[in-house]
């Protein structure tokens, strides 16, 4: 079953939540945040390659540099939205 954005999944190494996805060189990658024992975000982030046989941690530095740039830009966009959100006190009353 394919892991999608927002999904929470478990591997032997722990539990993760999927933040972003992208395609690069005809492969699909996901950018995930590891959750701690209380299911809260930790400071550990991982890039997985999605293969037919499952998820494989990406360790190639050249690929990681490109992928992390792509994921970083996407994360930046979300963070700008959040920072904009903080300035509006009444939006929930719309």
């Amino acid at each position, binding site marked *: 079953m394919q892991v999608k954005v927002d999904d929470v999944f478990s591997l032997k190494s722990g539990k993760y939540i999927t*933040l972003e996805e992208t395609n690069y060189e005809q492969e699909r990658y996901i950018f995930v945040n590891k959750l701690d024992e209380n*299911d809260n975000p930790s400071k*550990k982030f991982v890039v997985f390659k999605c293969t037919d046989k499952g998820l494989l941690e990406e360790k190639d530095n050249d690929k*990681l540099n490109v992928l992390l740039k792509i994921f970083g830009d996407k994360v930046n966009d979300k963070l700008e939205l959040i920072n904009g959100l903080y300035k509006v006190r009444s939006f929930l009353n*719309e």
Partner: protein
Amino acid sequence: MSEEELRKYVNSNITLEDSKKEEYQKSLQYLQEDADVQSMKNAVNSDNNEEKVRLRAFLNLADTARLTLNNDDYNKYHKYVKRNLTNEDREKASEVIKNVENVFAAQDEALSRKIDAILTEIDKDKKFDSIDLIDSLSNTILDKQVKAKYRSLYLIYKADFIKEKNIYAAYDFLNAATDYIKVIENYEVSSELRIKQAAVRRMLDKIKSARPDLPKDDQTIDKINKLLDKAEKDLDKKALEEARKLIENLPNGHEKEELTKRLNAISDKLIEKEITDLLDKAEKDLDKSALDKAKDLISKLPNEDKKRAFEKKADEIDKLIKEKDGKDPNGGSDSDDKDDPKPEQPIIEENAPKKTWKTYVSLAAGIGVGAAVFFTCGTVGVSVMAIAGGITKRLLAKRRRKLELQRLKGELPIEEVEEPLPGIKGKIQKLKNYFKSEEFCRDANWFLNGAIYTGLGLNIASSIYNLASAKFGAGVDTTPTPDTVTTDVQPKLDPTTATNSDPMSGIKIGENVGDYNVSVGHDTASWATSGSHTENLISEYVNSGSIFKRFAVMNPDGTVGQMINTNGLSIADFCNQSGIDPSQIAVDVASKNGTSQAWVSVSELVKGVGGKSL
């Protein structure tokens, strides 16, 4: 003639003698050019009685100066009075001038009291947290003598504060105080200041004599440059570190910046040399530990191109080492799976709460304190400072540009955010759609209460999580509920510090002013906390029935750090939770329908009310 009589005369029907018309006409012309106030021009154009127009005009200017405490307007008014009025008129005007000067004196007195209070605290606890507030307050004082006194005090205390960190800068501050002390006419005041100055100078001299490594100014730069030359030529680490120590002790300025840049450039060269040596050793001896050390240094290189080149070389050597150890360098190892994990099927949690927003909020909170969020990816340990740095720099640069624009326009930043900024509404909808969850929207309200408004820190983010967990339970309910959003936050109290007898505990957002003192206030939050531009509030409009609308936490430079809107939150609770001093907080007092009326400081609110005081 008193001001009241003057105003009566101006508004009466007495006409002007012809002989005086030309004289007054010239005065009017001068007033128009000098004062440049549209309302006065209108008054001049609409009235035929020129004497009255002239007098009315300068009374308007006096009123403007008095109401706004605008020093420029007051100076124009004073200049006009001195140059253009006859002696007789000058007497009439003197009453007006006196009234304006009294107001300025009261303002200076308020500033002096505030500074004295801060200095008393510093003398008591030796905590210099508010030292820079004294800088801005003392610069606002109008009277030259009073200003000289407090500027001297600021400089002397500042020297005391920074003496351990940067002794030369401390000497600079101390010497600058002398220029202010010289102009003080009151012998007692100037003596006292000289005594304080001498005491701090003795402390500085003691520190300097106890540290023989602190070089004299005139030799320092020369010595540093020689050390840097040696470090650069011979790739000498010891010389580099010696230069670094000397540079750290220099006073801040252009010279220190240039030397630091040169130091960093040489440091990078040394690191690159070390990496090259380690890679050579790793290649020659197939030494894994040398390779690992090299990789660690490579990961910290700031120059991306050089980093990639070194990484490529490191990978090649890695393959050689693996070949030597009998491993397949391309994967599929038959001996050791540790570096070659196999794909693993994930077990996806069905119906797990969609909580990616929590990760983003923790990242956003990290931005506010400039803390880089360190991404580690698996065993590679790639620290992606590019992402964290990019996020931090971009958002901080944006905020800085906005604040700068507002400063240039003479506006105070982010005081009033009643309506969504242009473009925000669309973004909110986009965000709502993206997360597809009412639960996020409901939880996000907590963040809108201001705790992470500027991303002040992970500790605040944590407190928000705690509050959200307390309200919504350990796991967030994924079933969307009707959106009855409230701001009824009951923050956790620290039972060891919060007490009901605290005079600030009754200043609560959403509640009536009651017995608190709202006889004086200010137009802006920064004026409230700096004690400047104090105005009498009209009790008909601002009274016990008014409400506390929100709190503004001010930065020392007068900008708003945080805006707090949490209903039911008191100043006492907020200060206990956040550790922020109440003197940094301004309270927005509003009418019952929520229209802001004035900003009042906490000390003003609690003053002289039922014996309460801070």
